[in-house]
């Protein structure tokens, strides 16, 4: 009796053909983007999206054509942070025109599909009770469509803001035909570093994309009155952690209420408060990433002459 391997083709279901066509559309769209970089942590609540919004602003300020994909399907926040929530998506034959953020940053987020603040992502379907079996696949298909069907145009850089969860990193990033780098964000707390260390392993051993480096967020709090710095967490020094994990250290971003206030207002602090210490730290980090990707000498110049 014949076995599975003895039978060529798919009996006419054309499932494989359709999956191949999906991948081809994705490849064609991504081919127009010079560098694709994922920003991840594995741990939630580390301020990753704020970092992404400000890095995007830094690159756009340096004259690059930048896109941002909010890959956090269930907890989208970049639409808010980049001030595009009120924009309407335009559905055209060639693709969906993304929202336009500050300095022309192209933004796509699930937030742009939802009608109100209170609306969560709910999927139609006949098997709601077994959601744990298929929700991951729905999210992956959604992200593939976000990548492939958005009219990103020619971009120098596409930043992907990944959701928390080390398990999501390979499943989401495997959609991309090529990934030029991974930026990993941590807090200087032992709890955060515990999770982030796992993400580094996943990035190195499963995703196998270049790790551009580790960013320490909420590094310390500077008193607005006396200027004294105070550590907020008592974890391992993140530079030492990066050294221990054999990845580059990109820098520290101090805790600064300006960052979160600007995120709430929909304007990256790097643009509205460029002299704030956190904004300057983010500019330096962007310059290092740009250098690693050989993207933009202009970024370094912009950082050196505020």
């Amino acid at each position, binding site marked *: *009796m*014949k076995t*599975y391997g003895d*039978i060529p*083709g*798919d*009996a*006419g*279901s*054309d*499932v494989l*053909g*359709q*999956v191949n*066509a*999906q991948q081809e*559309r994705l490849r064609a769209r991504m081919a127009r983007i010079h560098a694709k970089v994922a920003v991840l942590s594995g741990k939630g609540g580390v301020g990753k999206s704020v970092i992404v919004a400000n890095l995007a602003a830094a690159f756009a300020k340096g004259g690059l054509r930048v896109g941002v994909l909010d890959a956090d399907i269930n907890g989208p926040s970049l639409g808010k942070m980049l001030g595009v929530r009120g924009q*309407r*998506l335009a*559905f*055209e*034959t*060639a*693709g*969906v025109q993304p929202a336009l953020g500050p300095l022309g940053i192209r933004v796509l987020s699930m937030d*742009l*599909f*939802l*009608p*109100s603040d*209170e*609306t969560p*992502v*709910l*999927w*139609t*379907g*006949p*098997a*709601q*009770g*077994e*959601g744990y*079996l*298929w929700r991951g*696949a*729905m999210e992956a*298909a*959604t992200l*593939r*469509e*976000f990548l492939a*069907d958005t009219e990103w145009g020619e971009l120098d850089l596409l930043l992907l803001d990944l959701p928390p969860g080390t398990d999501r990193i390979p499943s989401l990033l495997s959609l991309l035909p090529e990934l030029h780098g991974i930026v990993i964000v941590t807090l200087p707390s032992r709890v955060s570093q515990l999770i982030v260390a796992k993400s580094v392993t996943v990035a190195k051993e499963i995703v196998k994309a270049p790790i551009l480096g580790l960013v320490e967020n909420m590094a310390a709090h500077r008193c607005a009155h006396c200027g004294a710095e105070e550590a907020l967490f008592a974890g391992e020094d993140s530079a030492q952690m990066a050294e221990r994990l054999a990845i580059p250290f990109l820098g520290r971003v101090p805790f600064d209420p300006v960052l979160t206030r600007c995120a709430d207002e929909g304007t990256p602090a790097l643009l509205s408060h460029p002299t704030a210490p956190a904004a300057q730290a983010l500019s330096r980090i962007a310059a290092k990433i740009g250098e690693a990707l050989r993207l933009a000498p202009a970024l370094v110049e912009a950082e050196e002459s505020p």
Partner: protein
Amino acid sequence: MKFLCVPCDEPMKITETKGPEDGSLAVVFGCPSCRRQVAMLTNPMETQMVRSLDVKIGGQQAPHDPMAFVRSSLAVKREEVQSPSEPSSTGSGCPFTSIANSAFERQDSMGGAIWSEEAAERLNNIPSFVRSWAQKGIEQYAREKGYQRVTVEVMEEARQRFGM
């Protein structure tokens, strides 16, 4: 998944797809040698799993519509996100995804179910952005079970079934 006609030792070919019926799809396979046919019937979870791949058994016939999957799969969405071909907020421009949505759509075409006063009051307590979606799901459940009337007990059964 492939089907083999054991007496002929021949791979079977898809000859027809039927449905949707109650979230289930029937895919008919035939043996090219002896012409014997078998049908693969999917349960709602299996239908949903295939739907999650954004494919149509037998091949896509309509041209690619950008973001058709997301637009047809979101239960609650902005007005401009709705596909042009969608007759309702849960309809689908994609032939296969319409299979999974059809249960809800068909209920629309049948008109509203009869709700007890207590059940209707409980329905009104569901947040507005998911109320119509929940209503359709509960009515569909009641219809599947042969209930003539949606009561609080029926709502509770549906809630447990759907994990709402």
